């Protein structure tokens, strides 16, 4: 199971304030699908622009097919712009 962490705001909006979840998924696409099943509407939000995903400490700005290992840590974060 991957450990998934949402931002406070997303947790409040979609998950009744809960932000930490254990989800079984092999990649980002499946993970988002699973979260959307748990909290309808969250999937679209997680795929919207302006949200990045960190998998095991590495930040991806536009992930989709990135693999998720069995005990990966996955964080949904605001996307970063550089200067």
């Amino acid at each position, binding site marked *: 199971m991957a450990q998934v*962490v949402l*931002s*406070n*705001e997303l947790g*409040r909006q979609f998950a009744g304030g809960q932000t930490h979840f254990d989800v079984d998924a092999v990649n980002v696409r499946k993970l988002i699908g699973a979260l959307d099943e748990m909290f309808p509407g969250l999937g679209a939000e997680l795929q*919207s*622009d*302006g949200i990045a995903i*960190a998998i*095991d*400490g*590495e*930040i*991806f*700005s*536009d992930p989709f097919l990135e693999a998720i290992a069995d005990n990966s*840590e996955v*964080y949904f*974060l*605001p*996307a*970063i*712009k*550089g*200067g």
Partner: protein
Amino acid sequence: MGYEDKELKWVGTRQIRPDGVDKVTGRANFGADLNLPGMLTGKILRSPHPHAKIVSINTDKAAALPGVKAIVTGADMPEMPSEMAQAGEGAVNFRYLSNNIMAHDKVLYDGHPVAAVAAISDAVANEALSLIEVEYEVLPHVIDVEESMKPDAPVLHDTIFTAGVEPKPEKPSNVVMRVQMGFGDPDAGYEKSDVVIERNYTTQPVHQGYIEPHAAVVEWTENDECRIWCSSQGQFMVRTFTAKLLDLELAQVRVTPAEIGGGFGGKTTIYLEPVAALLSRKSHRPVRMVMSRDEVFRATGPTSGTAMRVKIGATRDGKIQGAEAELKYQAGAYPGSPVAPGCMTAFAPYALENVKTVGYDVVVNRPLSASYRAPGAPMASFAVESAIDELAQELGMDPIDLRLKNAAKEGTQAPYGPKFKSIGYIETLEAAKAHPNYNIPLGPNQGRGVASGFWFNIGMQSSATVNVAEDGTVCVISGNPDIGGSRASLAMMAAEVLGVDYNKVKIIVGDTASIGYNDVTGGSRVTFATGMAIIQAAEDVVQQLRERAAMTWDIGVDAVVWEDGFARPASANAGDFKPLSLADIAAKAGRTGGPINGKAAINARGAGAGFGTHICDVEVDPDTGHVTVLRYTAVQDAGKAIHPGYVEGQMQGGVAQGVGWALNEEYIYGEDGRLQNPGFLDYRMPVASDLPMIDTVIVEVPNPAHPFGVRGVGEVPIVPPLGATANAVSHAIGKRMTDLPLSPPAIVSALDS
């Protein structure tokens, strides 16, 4: 695919940049240098009011002026839906972008464009602007971030309702959103603490200050092709933004990057191109638009001014038990301050158990903020590093030791959640502590300040092509404007992989029709991500060279190795063949299948986080408040310095900008909401005599995700200087300085208080 174990011939050396001679002889073509036959001059009429409704615009008199060929107002710009879309470096609201480039119904800052003309000369264009009649209904304005957050503040947009607060607001507000992140319970941490520091801090908006004003030439051809030559941090960004705002297909727009005279984030967006395009379409002639310095200051992106509160508690041993920050960032006229990265980076250098950051994105009647080097990080870092410095003072600890005690390392959970991978923060602290400058004794009125800083660095999309010419020379096509010598570092990596002489590798920056998509030159990504694409394209070439040699020798490709620019049999068993050079194979490429071209298109993964630690020594004249920077030392983990000279240059340049931010740079608005210092005279960027030599130490903790270990270096060096300088001044005068800039009157007033 790593090269760490190999002996490197080019990477890590100081080669002369391929575009260098053109740049030292005045031959390089920047945005304003292009002249097309029949070209017109385009100029923009700007609002003198910080906040007003546009009641009417009458362009009849201007249009009647001989020599005026076209006029554009907001009515000529297609209506954009208010929605975020992925473009350039991230999400962009094109309605805001369109309105910022040409006001539609309301002006939101002094300098907001309201109309534009194209004419046969500057003089005619200027006269035409003076003949355009705009009737305004002036509205109350708000400049200060905290004023703008008050419930009775004039509201800029009646469509903005604060996101991220409960209950969902019913009234529109200037507070665009509230963000919060962190973990643990800071209050519980303070309970355990022996010392708690809590302070308010402010910083003023500062401009990127590139010396080249924005410039663009646009020719709308009779084939309905929109051709653009301009100075920007990304030709593909210009293409996407212009096409979107004008409702064009991307393939209709072709953008050729001119040389760029500095950007620092400020040229990751557009201001002129759609306007020039419309003027060109209307006039059937090419149009050149070049901003004056006054326009650059009034209407292009500074970064946010801020109001911040930081609280940190620690036990006597120096262990930080709890930390929190509240950050209020000015976005300017439309949403989009870098407050989220501010929240994410504020405490990033530290391993914390209890941390909380709350941020607010706030619109005010100032120009829309734009990215500036490590967007959002320097101000938050200033507040946190000042508080850490005060904590060290209270605890009687050396400020580097205090940081070492709490330093983030591989596996530390970052304040924004994930755990850091391989990082080199501790190494920068140790190198700073060991630097001789850290032990130079200080005299009266002198002070030493230390601060650390963090930036994520990014990867993103890059394309690269490596073409082998028949004579064995190599042409590399990159898709990123070269803002600071990146052609050199990219060509060096290609030469290294191919095993050919650096001088045999030519590199160009392609236009949008000649190279695949690239994200902008920004985010410290070019040497990392585009470098990775070029390495892969060169490896593609190497694979083809081995195949061609194998065909030539009639052996299996696995029996051919590529070493030092030669194909060789892998072992004696493979046969006895005279090694073939790249040139040998290229000369006969037709025989073995045709031209040898390598390419790669990637979404680069694994950008390595960067840390730096700076030491600043100052002397303050206690009677006048004048600050002299005596010496400055910047230590940074670069992962691997491909071209150490340009890495040092990035560090030194970042320091100079940060010191300017700390000491004198600021936007000064009058009561009337107009900018009072839109020029280099009164904006006061550092000049050569304001600074000492800037000593640099490059630490190399390789990024395992990059073949050469590159982390990216452009942004980290602007993060620590605000705190380092303010800490130095605070020690020199014996008063804690919490508001930037530390101008002489501010210092004298602190000393007299």
